[in-house]
Every structure is written in structure tokens, then in C-alpha cells.
């Protein structure tokens, strides 16, 4: 394929997904797989998802599309026509993995199910990313990102105390979780294929993917009988009666916004040292002298502490933090290993000194917009096979010519396909 030294070089992926699974191909493409995004003639509906470049609603200007389709080439093809299906089969012969996110049964209904694909390419891998998986009582359910977040259990643990559940603020989180799990399942199957020559089907459920983000919430219910719901700014310690539940405020206001910090003691050594450092800082300024000699390791007993005691101690720190800026709090936190971080805005994130120093940001050229756009960069670093945005997201049908030519179509035949609305 290319001469570049990329991790998944030589792995070809056909990407038929909509926004539910669109992230999977991006993940694998950025690791160097040759991902071909196949869109309906006219363009994929995910191009209508905002935000847009300079707020101009245009299928070639969706920032969502840009973000979720890096490192892919793009072609248009109508796989609902017999001619389109034949072309898809030709492509499938050259592919290692097909990723799709249609309703279960759709691929079979158009003659492109796993059995048909296997006849063309016996070791093909077919990855299907859907809301709830290929079979089961909810398999045919309609989903969106919100529905995935709700059914997977994440929405219920978010939201403020006593208010309605809420979704993650950043868009498409359930879709991205489904996508990355689809990428993971696909490379697992690819590894097996490379070792044994055997292909298989990979069946991803967005609901399951979301449920994996719940940390220890399910275990807490099972062992302690407590459903964690709407915790807002608080951490909740589930303790047996008579002491009961303890609320610890982890998000607190500061002078120019909010910060998240852990304050307390007990067994988790980091918190003890961190709390001591925080008190020491306050003491230097003549504040929080009440806790000057407080021994967080032995005097802080989270398993028996009353809510009043907890609030009493936290009150001192809240008072101290309130008058400091995010920047000064974080600077000291980094220096003295205080477990405190600012609640950054996206702007703050783009200015973060650490991310800059590590070269996190990637500049990607968009020649047709006559501009360069800054993208989030590598999820991890590898020296010899660096992660890289191989190319910006494809324009509609951008690679029709080169890909159809590589399948042996003449310029005339491609023109004919265009006229007939196949591509």
C-alpha cells in the first residue's frame, strides 16, 4: 500500500457506518489502516451533523465529519442497487475488514451479509456496530447517542442531586465508545486472522460499551445495594447504617471558575499527602490554621465520619480555594503534588502547557478551505510507527477515480456509473 511506517499498514477496511460506528474507522485509520469510507451518492447523512466550519451548514464543512473521519479515503457507492452491490463485492475481495452500523439484518437483505461476503472472501471480518447488538429483544430498537447513554447506565449517574439525569456534555460519547470498541474487536479478529487465516463476525453493542464506563457503579449496587444516581459535584461513599451515605464535594468554586480536588485522608496515601500540602499552603498565608496539626492519615476516618464533620473540614478548604484563580491553584498543585485540577474550558484545554510541550496538537491542511485546522492528536506515542492523521476527512467521492480505477474500471465506465447514480 504505502511506504509509510505505520502500525496497521496493509490492513484494508471498508467503512459503511453512520455516526453510530463512524469513530471505529477513524481510530484504525489513524493507526495506519487503509480505510475507505463508502457513502451514498450525494454524501453521508453524518455530514449534516454540526458544528460547521465558520458555521456554514454545508456537507463539506461539518466539523463533526472532519473529526470522525480523519485518515479515511472516501468513495460514493449506492449499495442498494444490484450494480452497486457487485462493485461492493469487488471491493470486499480486496478488504480485510468491513465495518457497518445498519440495523441488524439489513446487510443480509441487500445480499451483502456475512455469508455472502464470506463466499467472496473466505477470511473476511465483518464488524457490526449497533445500539444493542445483532440479536436479542432490543436488537431492532432505534437508537441515538442519548438513548445509548441512558440505556447503558451513564445518564443516571450524572445530573445534579435531586434533578433529572443528564448526558455527557461532549457530543456523541456513546457513539464514540461504540466506535472504539468496534475498532478493538476488529483488530482482535484481524490478529486472529493473521495467525490462523480464519475470519469472523464482530458484534458490538453501544449499550454494552457505555456500561463499561461506569467504573465501579454496578459492583457497588451488587455488593452494597445502592444505586448511584445524580451526583452532580459530589463523590458518594456508600457506608452501612448507622453512619450511612457520605457526600464529599469534589467540585468547588474558585475565583474564576471551578476546580476539582480530593481532600481527606485514610488509606489512599496520595490524598493524605495532598491534603497536607494544601493545608500547608493555606497556613503559609495565615489561613486554615485550625487544621495546622491535623493528621489526615489517622484522624480522618471516612468510614465513621459524620456528614457535619466532613462538611466542617471541607468548609475551611472551600473558603481558601474560593479566592484563588484556577491558574494559581493548578500551578501549585503541579509543583507540590496536590490532587487538584481546574475545570477547564475547551479554550483552556487548547492552551494547556503540558499538551503543547508534548506536541499533542496536529495541524491538518484543508486546501479546499485554504486553511489549516488544529486537531487533537495521538492517544499514545510509538517511536517507530508513529500515530498520525494520515489525511483530512474525505470530500464527497474524493477518491472515486483512484479506487474505481484500481478495481479495473475505465474512465468511461466510471462516468457511466456516475450517470446511473451508482456512484
Amino acid at each position: 500500500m504505502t511506504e509509510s511506517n505505520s502500525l496497521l499498514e496493509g490492513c484494508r477496511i471498508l467503512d459503511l457506518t453512520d455516526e453510530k460506528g463512524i469513530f471505529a474507522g477513524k481510530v484504525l485509520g489513524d493507526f495506519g489502516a487503509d480505510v475507505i469510507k463508502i457513502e451514498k451518492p450525494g454524501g453521508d447523512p453524518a455530514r449534516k451533523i454540526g458544528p460547521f466550519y465558520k458555521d456554514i451548514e454545508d456537507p463539506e464543512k461539518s466539523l463533526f465529519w472532519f473529526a470522525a473521519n480523519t485518515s479515511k479515503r472516501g468513495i460514493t457507492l449506492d449499495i442498494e442497487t444490484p450494480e452497486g452491490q457487485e462493485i461492493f463485492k469487488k471491493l470486499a475481495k480486496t478488504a480485510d475488514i468491513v465495518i457497518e452500523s445498519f440495523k441488524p439484518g439489513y446487510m443480509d437483505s441487500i445480499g451483502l451479509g456475512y455469508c455472502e461476503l464470506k463466499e467472496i472472501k473466505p477470511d473476511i471480518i465483518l464488524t457490526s456496530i449497533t445500539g444493542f447488538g445483532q440479536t436479542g429483544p432490543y436488537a431492532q430498537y432505534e437508537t441515538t447517542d442519548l438513548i445509548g447513554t441512558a440505556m447503558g447506565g451513564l445518564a443516571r449517574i450524572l445530573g445534579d442531586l435531586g434533578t433529572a439525569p443528564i448526558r455527557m456534555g461532549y457530543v456523541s460519547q456513546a457513539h464514540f465508545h461504540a466506535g472504539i470498541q468496534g475498532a478493538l474487536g476488529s483488530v482482535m479478529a484481524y490478529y486472529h486472522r493473521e495467525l490462523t487465516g480464519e475470519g469472523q463476525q464482530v458484534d458490538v453493542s453501544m449499550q454494552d460499551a457505555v456500561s463499561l464506563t461506569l467504573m465501579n457503579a454496578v459492583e457497588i449496587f451488587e455488593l452494597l445495594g445502592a444505586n448511584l444516581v445524580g451526583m452532580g459535584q459530589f463523590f458518594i461513599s456508600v457506608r452501612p447504617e448507622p453512619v450511612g451515605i457520605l457526600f464529599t464535594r469534589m467540585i468547588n468554586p474558585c475565583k474564576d471558575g471551578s476546580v476539582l480536588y480530593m481532600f481527606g485522608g485514610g488509606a489512599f496515601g496520595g490524598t493524605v499527602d495532598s491534603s497536607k500540602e494544601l493545608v500547608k499552603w493555606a497556613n503559609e498565608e495565615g489561613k486554615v490554621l485550625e487544621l495546622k496539626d491535623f493528621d489526615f492519615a489517622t484522624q480522618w476516618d471516612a468510614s465513621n465520619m459524620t456528614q457535619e464533620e466532613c462538611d466542617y473540614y471541607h468548609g475551611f478548604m472551600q473558603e481558601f480555594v474560593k479566592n484563588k484563580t484556577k491558574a494559581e491553584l493548578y500551578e501549585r498543585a503541579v509543583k507540590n503534588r496536590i490532587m487538584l485540577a481546574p475545570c477547564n474550558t475547551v479554550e483552556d484545554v487548547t492552551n494547556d502547557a503540558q499538551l503543547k510541550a508534548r506536541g499533542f496538537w496536529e495541524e491538518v491542511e484543508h486546501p479546499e478551505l485554504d486553511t489549516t485546522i488544529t486537531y487533537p492528536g495521538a492517544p499514545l506515542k510509538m517511536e517507530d510507527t508513529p500515530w498520525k492523521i494520515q489525511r483530512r476527512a474525505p470530500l464527497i467521492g474524493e477518491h472515486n477515480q483512484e479506487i474505481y480505477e484500481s478495481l479495473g474500471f475505465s474512465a468511461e465506465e466510471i462516468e457511466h456509473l456516475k450517470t446511473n447514480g451508482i456512484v
Partner: protein
Amino acid sequence: MAKQIFEGLKVVDFSWAAAGPQVCRELAEHGATVIRVESHNKPCPLRTFAPHKDSIPGIDRSAFYTAYNTNKYNISLDLTHPEAGEVTRRLIEWADVTGESMTPGTMAKLGLDYESCRKINPGIIYFSTTQQGNYGPHRDFQGVGHHVNALGGFCRCTGWPNSEPTMIFTAYSDYIAPWYIVIAIIGALLRRRKTGEGMHIEQAQLEAGLTFAAPHILDYTVNKRNAVRRGNRDSQISPHGIYPCNGPDRWVAIAVTNEEQWASFCHVIGNPEWTEDAKFATLNDRKQNEDELDQLVGEWTKEHTDDQIMKMMQEAGVPAGIVQTSEDLLNDPQMKHREHSRKLEHPEIGVHSYHAPAYRLSETPCDIYRAGPCLGQDNEYVYREILGFTNDEIADMLVQKVITTEGESLAASW
């Protein structure tokens, strides 16, 4: 037992807390032999976190720990002991893959950083995952995944417009970062087959987490727009929200994504007069009158249970779903159908549920057969059978406390 993808693959897991151990768990659940190395002097922090069996803290009583370490062997080894070097040398020599998630610099001090391991085993694949990376001005920052929630903007942008930022309960990037590493390890294994070379994979969890913020980052870098808290609203879907249902603290999510679904939605709720109102006629109209719309939808949902609403809506082709609690997940018919929760018996905790991966592989399914181990549970097997120490040598290491057997008693952190 079905075929396992990673049968024969050998992994030494020096990582701890949540992100690193999930990497090795994923390999273990697909057939790899994984040895988790811990010590009683410095056990994994997850052992101190809830939930503990009967709320009584104890080194082998946390279900949080067991859930993240299924199928792994566990040995107790004091890495700081001068005599530990021979054990780690044999471990590294034996392994295909190893990984760590210690504070930056720790592994170098122990003589176990990538360069040192590579001298012992040139083909080793080595991952490091830390909060902010092994280098850079903030590398020594101390925090857990929740600090990444704050640093990455997840807290600030989640919540209601008029509320404070949300803490997010879950250490969110810990549920993104590991999957990138597993993908990289698989790529590295395939590459090693061709080149014989090992690899160092270095990760900052903050950076991995931010890949999920990409659309908003572009919105800022292009449009200079800072994402704001907007509750459950979506700019292109309406109604789009979470609404109260009949029953104690029960909620349903509904997302009407197009005009056809809007017509179906109105039909399901019995076409009340307000649905005919011009102010709700199109998406634009509904967006402009969304507070009132949500109020009206909520009045209807209150009359029905979450399950009824989900089924009525879904039958009509309208996306809707129960806002599920942890308890609901364990009883969810779809998740049961997929066997998402696996029951395993743990010697101290007893039987409880373990999440399976979110993907089902038709020919090489995962096999989750053993609860996360007690500390040092497999010392005998690993030291003798895998690493080849004699009984006398093992006895000596026990006396010298190279192999640890006890530490200070453990209190709960949270």
C-alpha cells in the same frame, strides 16, 4: 473451551489502579497468560476502594479490584527489595508484553523501564500509561481519572446551563485510554512477527481522553466557540431529553430525530391538541419553544412507566430508552441475552457479576473464568512452574521478604 486469540501470549502486568489493569485484562480474557505483580507493602489502590464485601475493608475484599483483574495470576513481590532483580529478570525474559502505570520515573528507579527491559528481552512490547505522560512540565502532577475529567473539559461542559460543572463520578479517561493501548499492542505483535522488533507505547490518559472531545476542539480552533453546559439539549434533534415517568425516580430518554418520527411521536401520545400548535410544527419551531415542549412531553411521560414508554415509542419507530440504574443493567433483558454480566466466584467476596467486553467475536469468544486474584494467590505456581525457582529458593525469598506475605492492615479510601 473455544479457541482463544491470545493463547500462548505471555504478559507481565506491573500496572495498577484502573487504566493499565484493564489492558491486561482484555488480553487475559482472550487467552493470554497474565501475571499481575503486586506487593503487600504497596497493594493496588483498587483494593482500598469500594465496594468491599460487607463494607469491611480488606486486601482481598474489593469487588472493584476483582472486576479489573479477571483471569490473571497474581504474585506478591517487593520490587524495591535488592533481591527482586532476579525475579523481574526472569519475568521480563519470559514475557511478550509488559506494562506499567506508575508515577513517571518509578520504573526507571526500579531498573524496569523500557530500556532496561529491552536489554533483557529485545522483542518486548512495553506500555506505559500515566495521567499526563512520562515527560513534559506536568508529568509529576498527581491525580486520578477524575482530574482528567476536569482538565479535559468534561466536567465543565456536563450539566445544566445554570448549574456548576459535574464531577462525572467515573474516571472517564480510564474507560477510553486502555482500548487504544490494546489496539497498539496487537499492531506491535503483528509487526514483531515481521521485524522481530519490540515496541514502547507511551500514553498520557489526558491525551487519549481528549480524542473524544474532537468535535468541540475543532469548534474552538475553527470557530472560537467554547462548549457550554446545555443539559440534554441537542442542536439538531427535538424533542431531545430525559423525562420523568410514573414510578419512584424513574426516567425515560426520548430523541425525535426527524419529522416522520415527530408525527409518530404525536400519534403515540394520542395527538393532544398542543401537538397541532404551529409553534411545534418543524424542528426549528420546536427548538425555539423547547422549554414549553419539554414541559408538555414531561406531563405525558409522567402518566406511564419508563418501560411502557420505551416500548410504545420503539414500536412506532421513535428512539426511546429507559434511563437505567446499575440495578436495571443487571436485569436488562438485552444485556442478559448478550450475557454481558458473567458470574464468578471469588474466595473472599463470593459470587458477583463481571462486565464482559462490548464486542462478541463469533469464532473466538472471550472466556471469563476466574475472578480477580487475591494478593499472592499464585505465588507457588508462578515462582516454581513458570519462573523455575526451586522450593529452597522460594523459601529463602519468603524469609528475606522478597516475596511479601503481609503488610499493614488496610483501611478503605472511599
